[in-house]
């Protein structure tokens, strides 16, 4: 109990307003135990389980199963982490967007006189400060296993490690923004998460693979983000053909629309 009080910033070290609000958001999310455990399972434990399983296969039958590390398994781990990290990010975003409303605390925050836009925007750094470190740990775990369990297989270059880290950061960051925007728009966590899961896991992959949609597929966030993935880890047939400019515009549009919708609803809803 004493430790809890000590974790709060001391009075004399109270940071400036935007940072205080962001730290408040961070505190709210970090103390949500179930959410944090789930996010850690999806981002960190998933990497450990994946590489440990690959290593067990290799140890049990090294002829049939190659080493757990190396470039190819790193490539797989990057896609697994981007997908599971996006799910974790969407959950955290939904919580960041809807928790104040769900708890009935939003009106007390509005009644302080603080602008609703400031309250909303503080959720962005607060939430990213939760999801990015988790994904970073998961990625570091993946890198360590990739190198240490390579067993003579080629390993990615430092540049590729960095590029993949940035790409995963972008992917989960966008999923967080999507969750935040939709959570703020709907105002309830459970329906937001259900909608995002359905979109991320079912609808978007299906739509992205329907070639009959033509350029319509360019509008899919996963297609646009996939286009920015380091080329050496993406097989050509997996990429939806589009220009770099289009992918950037699509990503920007998704981010702006998500945040815009969430901000608009936060400013207009009765608290």
């Amino acid at each position, binding site marked *: 109990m004493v430790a809890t009080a000590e974790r709060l910033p001391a009075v004399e070290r109270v940071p400036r307003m935007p940072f205080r609000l962001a730290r408040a958001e961070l505190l709210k999310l970090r103390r949500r135990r179930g959410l944090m455990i789930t996010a850690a399972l999806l981002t960190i434990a998933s990497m450990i389980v994946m590489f440990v399983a690959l290593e067990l296969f290799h140890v049990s039958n090294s002829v049939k199963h190659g080493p757990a590390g190396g470039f190819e398994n790193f490539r797989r781990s990057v896609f697994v982490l981007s997908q599971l990290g996006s799910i974790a990010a969407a959950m955290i975003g939904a919580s960041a967007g809807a928790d104040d409303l769900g708890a009935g605390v939003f009106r007390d925050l509005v*009644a302080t006189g603080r602008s609703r836009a400031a*309250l909303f925007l503080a959720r962005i750094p607060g939430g990213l400060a939760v999801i990015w470190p988790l994904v970073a740990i998961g990625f570091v775990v993946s890198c360590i296993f990739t190198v240490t369990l390579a067993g003579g297989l080629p390993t990615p270059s430092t540049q590729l490690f960095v590029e993949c880290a940035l790409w995963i950061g972008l992917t989960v960051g966008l999923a967080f923004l999507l969750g935040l925007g939709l959570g703020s728009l709907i105002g309830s966590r459970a329906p937001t998460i259900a909608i995002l899961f359905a979109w991320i896991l079912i609808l978007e992959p299906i739509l992205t693979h329907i070639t009959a949609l033509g350029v319509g597929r360019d509008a899919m966030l996963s297609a646009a983000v996939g286009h920015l993935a380091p080329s050496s880890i993406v097989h050509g047939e997996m990429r939806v053909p589009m220009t770099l400019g289009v992918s950037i515009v699509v990503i920007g549009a998704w981010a702006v629309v998500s945040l815009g919708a969430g901000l608009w609803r936060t400013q207009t809803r009765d608290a």
Partner: protein
Amino acid sequence: MDFVVETRGLTKHFGTRVAVDNVDLRVPRGSAFGYLGPNGAGKTTLIRMLLGLTRATSGDMRVLGCPVPARRAEALRRVGAIVEEPRFHNHLTGRENLWIVAAAREPAAHARIDGALARVGLAERADERVRSYSQGMRQRLGVARCLLADPELLILDEPTNGLDPAGINEFRAFVGELVGEGRTILLSSHLLGEVERICDAVAIVDRGRVVAQGSIAELSARESSSIVIGCDDPPRARSLIASLGHVARVDTEGESLRVVLGSGAEIEPTAAELNRLLVSAGLAVHRLDPQHASLEQTFLDITSRLEDAA
């Protein structure tokens, strides 16, 4: 006189329903001001407009001299509020919940957390999750949250809802302390007795409209005091009493008579005079019950007159 809350023509529509109807309200600085009305009269809606939680359809508001919503941030800097029941993040401790609200206020609010917790008697349990708090503790934590603003004005909406009698008494004493410090309290309630005990001025609201406003003494004086008499031969007693000049009217209530006094008549001397009159006429008096006009009577009379008119 200095007013901490002023509204003019304040109106709020929900579709075709009028929740707040052209309200002119003036809350004097340093007072405990009751906003009294039955459930559904529009009390909470008015408070929500003052705090910027919902928009007014029309009209003007000023809080601590600042127009709302134009200068809402400045207006609410020194305002603490509990709207309906106080709500918290249940997965956080009491202290963490205060920290979150302090983060939205000025930096000095952080320095007030420990003092606020101590003042409401929650210092010992501040680091327990709010999930484990009783209703009374939540109410106290809500007050502590208000104190983070070092408020000039506290807006309390139905603050004793859900509290047990001991909690209600404790709360009343606490409000008294706050008023004693020069803070203004705007207390909304449907409980007449509560407003009468805590407040020194009141606005009575019915169906979204303020139907009376002033000090409790002024409003009570608008209604007549009465004396209930039980005696032998009520018809004869009635004719004797009706002849007195300062009696407005005499109503029959079962076996008793209610003597309604005219304006300016003092109740205790009149009761003595009535007793002398009846006894000297040979009537045995077995009940003599002076009843001062109360806010409750005023409230019921005003609202029942409105219902009759409707």
